[in-house]
């Protein structure tokens, strides 16, 4: 007890010390890539590092927290992180379906449709991890104006095989453990009301520096867009907050002459006019086309390989980078696969009681490919795990699926977590099929637009990459970049919502009828009628 107290004292004093000496560094970057189908991907990255800081020890949640003094770090986010003692946080809000086959891997990996939130939190706090998770998602819902509050226990899972901490998890007293909470909400629609609070977290908002290109009119006109917030602890280096915004623009759409030329002005309707005074570095990186027939204006000061880098801080303002190519854009007849596999997920079946989940996996490589397959399903779709069957090129192969871990759904409360290891033969098409049951919901559990159906979260497939000095799974494998499948829409049986009143009326009539008959029988008086004999004559 005494020792614990002393440790607490030491901790709090170092904490104060840390807060007194922190320095903060802010870097901003914009990366522009050309994609095979003529689209242009733009990725804004804003990184703030709070040097020397450490996440809050959950055991100190009962005591008053140290004062928070920030220069560049977003205070509103910092308050939430410390209030709930969150060590690592990832929030993504995406609109649209990322097409891995055409677009390759995204710059930012989390591209699952809708909202996805996952966090690592330390245990040992006076309040449980689930309570803090609830507080966290409600606070973030308020901060980002998103319906993250509905990421309740019906959607929360803990899939530790597919999600690893990306930073360092602190070890406060030698045996402290961390828990993962993950939830996704595919029906979340991302729009301006989410971008405005996002911009408020940036030191320069959208008024100067690279961030001044973030023009909502253009960003939400893009073919695909998504934003994300990542908070992680780098160990002694401090806490890092990374805010990103990705969008996929199509210069061909607005082009009359069908060429792929773009400039800041044509993509964002803005140019960079001023430096962000808070930025330590501010760069724009452009992946130049492989052919020589292009011109980039202004001339890139640094080119390494096909990557041209502009330093915004020293560049002449207003900065309007443009890349133009000679000739028309030739739409390719086939796309070169960048991701090792491509995947199609569908929910088959025509009735509202059951169906079949089907996954088609194509291995493009000439080597066997191992994957971690994660399915987090709300309880309204229940798996029949014994019907899970893998067919390679039409023949049943049992050795494709191995190492299954399965947490069955509990109706009305817990979702399914299904994790398995898949091993795909080289250059093959593998089909996974599984029968599912669709739940019959309670009257009050239906959403307001019940006939639309329910969005189901994307599955995540994480390739395992052979690695000689791997860190994560085993000595030889590490997790590659995840591949998110598209979301599904499930049509569950919906009642006629005026039914309760009809039922009340029908039942009441029936009850009244039966009651009346029985009552009548019980109290009826029978009498003998004597017919007058005279009348008969």
């Amino acid at each position, binding site marked *: 007890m005494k020792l614990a107290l002393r440790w607490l004292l030491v901790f709090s004093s170092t904490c104060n010390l840390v807060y007194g000496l922190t320095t903060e560094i802010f870097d901003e970057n914009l990366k522009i890539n050309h994609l095979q189908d003529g689209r242009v991907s733009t990725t804004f990255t804003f990184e703030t590092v709070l040097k020397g800081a450490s996440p809050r020890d959950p055991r100190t949640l009962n005591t008053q927290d140290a004062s*928070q003094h920030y220069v560049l770090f977003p205070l*509103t986010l910092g308050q939430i992180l410390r209030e709930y003692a969150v060590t690592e946080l990832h929030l993504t809000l995406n609109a649209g379906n990322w097409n891995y086959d055409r677009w390759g891997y995204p710059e930012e990996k989390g591209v699952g449709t809708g909202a996805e939130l996952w966090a690592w939190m330390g245990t040992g706090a006076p309040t449980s991890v689930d309570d803090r998770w609830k507080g966290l998602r409600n606070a973030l819902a308020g901060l980002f104006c998103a319906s993250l509050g509905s990421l309740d226990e019906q959607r929360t899972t803990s899939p530790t095989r597919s999600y690893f901490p990306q930073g360092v998890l602190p070890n406060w007293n030698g045996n402290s453990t961390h828990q993962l909470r993950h939830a996704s909400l595919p029906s979340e629609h991302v729009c301006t009301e989410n971008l405005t609070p996002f911009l408020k977290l940036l030191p320069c908002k959208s008024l100067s520096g690279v961030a001044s290109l973030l023009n909502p009119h253009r960003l939400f006109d893009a073919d695909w867009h998504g934003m994300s917030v990542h908070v992680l602890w780098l160990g002694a280096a401090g806490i890092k907050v990374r805010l990103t915004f990705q969008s996929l623009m199509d210069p061909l759409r607005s082009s009359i002459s069908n060429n792929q030329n773009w400039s800041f002005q044509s993509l964002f309707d803005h140019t960079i006019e001023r430096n962000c005074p808070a930025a330590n570095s501010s760069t724009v990186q452009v992946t130049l086309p492989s052919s020589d027939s292009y011109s980039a204006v202004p001339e890139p000061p640094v080119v390494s390989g096909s990557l041209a880098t502009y330093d915004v801080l020293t560049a002449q303002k207003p900065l309007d980078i443009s890349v133009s190519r000679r000739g028309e854009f030739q739409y390719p007849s086939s796309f070169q696969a960048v991701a090792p596999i491509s995947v199609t997920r569908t929910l088959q079946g025509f009735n509202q009681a059951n169906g079949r989940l089907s996954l088609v996996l194509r291995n493009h490589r000439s080597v066997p490919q191992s994957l971690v397959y994660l399915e987090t399903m709300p309880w309204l779709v229940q798996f029949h795990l014994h019907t899970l069957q893998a067919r390679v090129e039409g023949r049943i192969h049992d050795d494709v699926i191995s190492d299954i871990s399965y947490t069955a759904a509990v109706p009305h409360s817990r979702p399914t977590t299904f994790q398995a290891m898949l091993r795909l033969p080289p250059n093959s098409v593998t089909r996974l099929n599984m029968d599912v049951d669709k739940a019959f919901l309670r009257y009050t559990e239906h959403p307001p637009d019940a006939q639309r159906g329910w969005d189901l979260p994307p599955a995540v497939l994480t390739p395992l990459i052979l690695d000689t000095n791997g860190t994560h799974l085993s000595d030889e494998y590490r997790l590659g970049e995840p591949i998110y499948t598209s979301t599904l829409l499930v049509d569950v049986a919906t009642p006629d919502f005026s039914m309760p009143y009809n039922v009340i009326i029908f039942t009441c009539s029936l009850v009244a009828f039966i009651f009346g008959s029985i009552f009548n029988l019980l109290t009826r008086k029978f009498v003998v009628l004597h017919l007058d004999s005279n009348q008969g004559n």
Partner: protein
Amino acid sequence: MPFPLPAPLKDPSTLFYQSNVVKRSIIASYWTVILLAVPLWWYATSIQRLSLPISQIHSHAQRHLKLPVDICVEDVDAVSNLHAFFAEKTRAGSDGWSDLEVRVHGGSECADTSSYRVRNAPNILVTQNEIYLPLHDKQRLSSASEIFTSLVNPSSRTINQNNRVVQYSPQYRLAFTLLNEDASTGSSASNWDIQAGLAQRVKPILDKLQPLHNFTIESQVQYHGRLAFKPQAIGDVSYGLTAEDLTVFINSAEWSLSSSASNDPVLHFVLFIPSATRRPLHILTSDAQISRSKSFLLPQWGGITIYNPPIDILGKNADLPARVNDQVFQEFSRQLLTLLGVPFLPNGVQTHQSDISSLSDWQIDALMRRRALENAKGAHETLTSIVKLVDQIENMPVKEDVKGDVQGALDALEKVSPSLHSLPFRLLTNDPQTFAASSLQDTFRYSAEATTLASRAFFNPGMLALLYFPAEHKYAVYTPLFASAVIPLFVAALKEITAWRKQR
């Protein structure tokens, strides 16, 4: 004589279940079941409304709370003088004097009850809980007494001009913001020495206010904080803010000042650095002259200070100079004291400590007395409104927790009245100072508890649950069932009664 029936048939009137007695008892038993079910149905569908201690709340209104102030005068001759002075003030009863009971003791008799001491000295000087007055100088004594009384009970009008003082809360969040209007134009402040400013100017105050409030502190720096309006230009060189501008100065849509993590009231302190293109920015007086003041206060919200840094030729941003930093935090600390309602020392009073940040016990105690009275009054008003509300709205449930909170608030209010609980203290402790201090602190603590509990009861979400559940809804569900079942029962009962009457 009726015709006899054929042999296999019976006359129904001879069957036992066709007798009037059986039939009537069947109908009677139906009605008994229904009548017995009514209380059960009533109980199952009624809203739980526990009775509140109404009479206790009303009787408490009759009681007038008087807080004692014990003053010990070193010089016995001056006792009567001061006593008369205070008696007159109390008799007038204005400006909060009616809530105080000032007792002046002299020499030896005051040893164990008084908390303040008056000593003799030519100049008026205040130390921790002592005051030096020119007790022997009859001419100066009356003006000195006037100052003395305003130290004991500062005029509430001067403290709470325009409702500046924030509502009492046990916990406040102090949010300091260095806000550059546009740092990208250069010559703005990129950072400030918040730690030094807080340590030198704010922390000493917060330590002194510890018995009243807890504080959490946070700070941030912002590089872009546009104003929602254009300040008017004065000539070519400077810009001005009129009184109307000040009321809309806060651009809460763009300045991310609000914090979302807690419900504690926030006091904001903003250092505003105007854009280099709109500098210097001044506050204008009502006759459009440049005011000497560089800061202003938004009642119950916080304070804003404007600093115009010199224009740097290279357009670089620099840290806030240490001297300016100190001035700014001195201003913030003054604004903090005003917002919290801490009375300033009356004019003409000297202290040993030269700077403002060390407060005397006189000021803290005066504030504590005022807050205690306010809280007790507020708690009582809240309790009365709860009773009124519950009385007015019949659908409003009153559950155990609400009742418990109301009772707790009442109990705390009982304890606020010092005469009740100070007696055992008087017996236990010999040290007059600790007794008096703990007594005032206890009073304050109970009053704070009372107001917290009362407002928790008032805002209990359970009280709203059935507020808008219409009675028509109930009938819509009941009528189809009960109307069709009860009508045959009624008719049968009526028939039987008429038959029975005829029989007689």
